[in-house]
């Protein structure tokens, strides 16, 4: 199947880039950068910088987003820069912004082209020119007929939706027939947004020494080096806003975040890396932090490293949750939301439980707050023992 050049310019992450623009796709990165920056690179520099600046300012769109061959260059340069910057926070910010820009472009796309994009990604998708009906929702006098022009093979659906753990995306809550999920254009665009986000998303930073060696060569290209420095300077100005410590003192002055169970630690580390959280993760972490008496401002500041952070909105939601005194999810609920991290972290207390002296038996952990209580109790006992030891040693 041949895809239009314009589509690849619009969406440079498509596999057909290699076929339609072999001169760009197969070029060694250093040669590519040398070529691009040897002849009037000002426009490219500005377009790349716009992406970085926007992502550092928590913007969700790019003004004056252009679709031309230079858009391919911008995409490749961003990827190279992210590799050289080797910073998870920056990569994840760009991943979120670039994917959101992609979503807003895809949603405007013609159905037939959206189908071409999916086929180029080797997705098993069916396209119907006349939409097919898969249900009706009636509430009182209002009737919503559910139509779709697309069906996607369930394994492709699961792969794309894997990181989006919202309840409404779960397979069981979707119309599935003959192996294909009925899917609306909006949902396909959202799944592709996630696919694009994953392309930029940096799970672990690269080996520093190999990046440094490569960086030296790249930064010798004057204009590219200038661009790199401008990005870094911008980041230096902005990053303070995102770097908050997770060390939060409890009433007795100790840092209780060390006593958190894996489910809470996992979400906190996602926040720290600037990853997006799903709805249930956001609710859970806010309710937990409120339950263990974190200050509202501290919670808001924690969220500030997230890509879609909005201080006013966050403040309203945190204050509302505090007023309502919601109880955080228990372990069984977390398991059903796939948010239990006991196995991933191989956490002994979560997996095997603890021995209750009071009840003289092994008990299972059923709530993350019980975990914190137990850990605090153990830490308190340990401190007491070491204090006594200290006193004995001094006697």
């Amino acid at each position, binding site marked *: 199947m041949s895809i239009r050049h314009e589509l690849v310019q619009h969406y440079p992450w498509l596999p057909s880039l290699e076929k339609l623009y072999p001169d760009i796709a197969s070029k060694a990165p250093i040669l590519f950068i040398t070529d691009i920056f040897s002849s009037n690179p000002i426009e490219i520099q500005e377009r790349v910088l716009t992406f970085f600046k926007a992502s550092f300012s928590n913007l969700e769109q790019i003004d004056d987003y252009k679709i031309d061959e230079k858009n391919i260059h911008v995409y490749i340069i961003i990827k190279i820069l992210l590799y050289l910057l080797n910073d998870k926070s920056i990569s994840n910010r760009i991943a979120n912004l670039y994917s959101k820009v992609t979503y807003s472009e895809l949603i405007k796309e013609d159905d037939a082209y959206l189908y071409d994009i999916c086929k180029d990604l080797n997705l098993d998708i069916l396209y119907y020119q006349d939409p097919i009906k*898969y249900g009706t*929702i009636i509430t009182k006098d209002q009737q919503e007929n559910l139509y779709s022009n697309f069906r996607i093979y369930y394994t492709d659906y699961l792969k794309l939706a894997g990181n989006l753990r919202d309840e409404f995306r779960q397979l*069981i809550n979707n119309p599935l027939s003959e192996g294909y999920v009925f899917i609306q254009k909006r949902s396909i665009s959202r799944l592709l947004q996630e696919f694009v986000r994953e392309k930029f998303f940096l799970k672990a930073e690269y080996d520093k020494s190999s990046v440094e060696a490569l960086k030296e060569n790249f930064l010798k290209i004057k204009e590219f080096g200038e661009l790199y420095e401008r990005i870094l300077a911008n980041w230096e100005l902005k990053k303070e806003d995102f770097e908050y410590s997770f060390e939060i003192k409890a009433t007795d002055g100790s840092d209780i975040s060390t006593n958190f169970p894996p489910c809470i630690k996992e979400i906190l580390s996602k926040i720290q890396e600037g990853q997006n959280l799903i709805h249930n993760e956001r609710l859970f972490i806010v309710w937990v932090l409120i339950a263990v008496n974190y200050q509202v401002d501290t919670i808001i500041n924690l969220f500030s490293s997230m890509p879609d952070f909005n201080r006013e909105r966050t403040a309203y939601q945190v204050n509302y949750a505090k007023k309502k005194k919601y109880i955080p999810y228990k372990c069984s609920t977390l398991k059903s939301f796939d948010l239990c991290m006991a196995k991933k972290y191989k956490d002994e207390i979560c997996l095997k439980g603890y021995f209750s002296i009071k009840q003289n038996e092994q008990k299972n952990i059923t709530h993350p707050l019980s975990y914190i209580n137990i850990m605090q109790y153990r830490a308190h006992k340990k401190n007491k023992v070491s204090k006594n030891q200290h006193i004995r040693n001094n006697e």
Partner: protein
Amino acid sequence: MSEKNYLKRIFQVYYKEKRSFLPKINSFENREFGFIPWNQQIMIRHYNFDNIRNLNNYLIRDGPRHVYSSATLYINPYKTPMDNKGYLGCDFIIDIDVDHFDTPCKDDHDLWYCKDCGKEGKGMPPKKCPTCSKSKFKRVSWICDHCLNIAKNEIIKLIKNFLIPDFGYKETDFIIAFSGHRGYHLKVEDDRMRQLSSESRREIVDYLTGHNISFEILGLRKFSQNIYGFLKENIGWPQKILLKLEDILKNSSPIELENLLIKFGLNKNIRKSFMNSKDDFLETISKSKRNLWIIPNFSLETWKTFLSEVVKEIGAEIDQPVSIDVHRLIRYPGSLHGKTGFKVQELTFQELETYNPLNQSDGVLDPIVFKSEN
């Protein structure tokens, strides 16, 4: 000669005599093999065989108590630790074990005793020991036609109600096996399914069992004191629920229906309301464009409780970790089960429909390989 040595010899003889009957499973060379010997209760893992003859020779030499191969395909199945094996993909496995079903026949052939106080009982063990309130039990279980039939019907239900209509597979896409003891395995060796992560497999399991269903997302609404339910034309689980409800309401006697509602945990008033309104409700759900569900005393929460129980009736009872795990070993077809001495027997879907492991007329499919001569 000790009992275990005697059994080992019998197994060795079986593998020697039946060497030409041991089937070679797909991608044989890429599978990891594991064995449990007679003299110790440990799994010896990370074996790999280039061909079926080598596996057969191993079985004749060692006559292991249990024989397993991986559902997973690896580049180097023999390497350790697991990360060094080179993961290629994993078949999708469904394990149905009668252990999970509370069948009346268990009172005839299963026993339990409390590990703490020694209290004994028949059937499934209780949640807590009635004498000491502890919850650790030892079980002694056996099988009968009745419970094996339940396991078989569960596999048939999975195939007919889910895997064929919803997932688009054909009858010939399944490899089914009687496990040699208390149930059946079903394997799908589809390349696209093989590439799915554990998380994605969990979603398939949820779909097959009905776990994590959201009635609100599927269309259940409350609007100014009225409850609006699903329509039968809504593809997926809403349709399954309504068809099941229709089936229950059309085909159950009042006593059967009452018992079902008791099983659902509904209180007397709610049950009475439902029994009084059931005919109107049946008419509503049978019509294509009516979804105003009116049953007095049924709040949104009551509907959700009621529907959750209906979902349990529809969903399959499977051993979930088996389907989710991507490094699972399962019994090798044609091998012997060390607890029963029965053969693990592969079956086609057609063969399954008439299959009775304890009374199998077709000698090739008969899992009982050791028989006393009359």
